[in-house]
């Protein structure tokens, strides 16, 4: 197995007297697809913000792509991509402009950005819509373009925060085909989702309850361990025990 790309050791984050993330430990290897599950308010977003170098841990340690979240957050940002359903593309820019813009932000040269843009346009079959404003595109296309943009610089890790809400079952699966292909190229994928069937596409998952990791492993092993048919059943039995509410 390759070197771990994401490491957390007793990672903790407090806000005042509230412990949002409570001593979590995990290791994710290169090219692994890791599903980071939990109810709304379980602490996923806080942990993800630490991994992205956006928030300092209160105690414990986190490192991503070999850089420490406390001391080298700026270096982490160079090595990762990030996509969320809530924000990812500029709706008043065209598809091409978006790709070129993000390629620039992620430090690609003008020439690389141009090459990458036509590569993505080809791959996604967007030749006819490359000059359309993003706002006019169906949600499923936006999601796939967002993912392509988040990986335009071939990062070591891509963080996906609920990337696939609301699309039809075929489009949702086309999105997962892209995730699999990125993982095959060696990109580590760290994804949160509320679709429990998507949890089963992951190599491993963790389920957070009240800031702590309540279960972690391969989806099939967790189903066996809890003697239930699906990850949804595992999730519900664990999340029911939560004592805190809300986001």
């Amino acid at each position: 197995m390759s070197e771990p790309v994401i490491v957390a050791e007793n990672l903790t984050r407090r806000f005042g007297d509230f412990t949002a993330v409570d001593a979590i430990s995990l290791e994710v290897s290169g090219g692994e697809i890791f599903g980071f599950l939990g109810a709304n308010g379980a602490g996923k977003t806080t942990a993800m913000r630490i991994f992205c170098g956006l928030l300092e841990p209160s105690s414990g340690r986190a490192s991503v792509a070999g850089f420490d979240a406390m001391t080298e957050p700026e270096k982490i940002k160079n090595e990762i991509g990030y996509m969320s359903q809530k924000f990812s593309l500029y709706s008043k820019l065209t598809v091409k402009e978006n790709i070129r813009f993000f390629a620039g932000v992620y430090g690609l040269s003008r020439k690389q950005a141009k090459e990458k843009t036509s590569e993505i346009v080809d791959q996604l079959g967007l030749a006819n819509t490359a000059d359309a404003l993003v706002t006019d595109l169906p949600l499923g296309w936006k999601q796939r373009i967002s993912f392509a943009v988040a990986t335009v610089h071939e990062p070591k890790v891509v963080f996906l925060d609920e990337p696939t809400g609301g699309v039809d079952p075929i489009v949702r699966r086309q999105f997962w085909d892209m995730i699999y292909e990125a993982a095959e190229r060696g990109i580590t994928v760290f994804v949160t989702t509320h679709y429990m069937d998507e949890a089963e596409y992951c190599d491993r998952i963790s389920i957070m309850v009240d800031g702590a990791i309540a279960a972690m492993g391969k989806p099939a092993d967790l189903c066996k361990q809890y003697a239930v048919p699906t990850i949804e059943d595992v999730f519900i039995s664990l999340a029911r025990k939560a004592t805190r509410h809300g986001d």
Partner: protein
Amino acid sequence: MAGEGQAVVVDGICKSYGGDVQALQNVSFEVKPGELFGLIGPDGAGKTTLLRILTTLLLADSGSASVHGLDVRREFSAIRGIVGYMPGKFSLYQDLSVEENLNFFATVFGTTVKANYHLVEDIYRQLEPFKTRLAGNLSGGMKQKLALCCALIHAPTVLFLDEPTTGVDPVSRKDFWGMLGRLRDSGIAIVVSTPYMDEAARCERIALIQKGQIIAMDSLAGILASNQTETYAVRGEGLLGVLKALRAYPETRYCYAFGQEHHLVLKGDADPKGAESFLRAQGHQDVSFRRIEPTIEDVFIALMQDQADV
């Protein structure tokens, strides 16, 4: 009059935005009092447009619709008094407290929280500890419960809910559907839209909607029974490799990932044994095939593929 005694009647509704975007194409259905009716389809299918027409916020281009016999065009103001509507975007007052929002909506409809408290009691009890908190500071799950209370406080006879469970975790989703079931049992007709196919099981009847058209409508059992496409679940080590190999097999019609396995539909009456030996020849030794009953997602995919193949 046709559809007498129905809570909702929709007859041949069409709506387009700016000519070339056909949001709804000839949509018709009826919902009975005390029925929980699901509109299931992806973003952009036309669900919101339909709910906005039924709540008299938008006019259809053609066709007619009524709520409890009241016409959505001519009798819109009477309809507004008897329906509850929970839009997809959170639209309560963020800078009013939980309690103030509920009082406000009761007053707007000329009633009081006290008069109709029994309708929301079951849900509001969970919000009561936070009743002085500003609505803007509530968690997603609690916002959704408050929005439901505010949509119910004037004792509507029909409730329209636009994607109430999108972005909500599985536990809160399950709880929310439990609440809807109890409301339905109390006699309220409920029309709810959702992109989650698995929520079909919670509705008496569902309409699968895609690109402005209803592509199937029945009970879940009825829809499953009338779409018996021969479907195989395939398992094996290295799911992506197996998926690619299955898609490369010439007799494959389509194949998609479903959790820890793939669902495969072959062309015509091709034998799955052929696909199995094809996979083994490609180096996937440990694969297993089994015939399965299609799920609602399989059916939705099958209907979409049928349309694409026409």
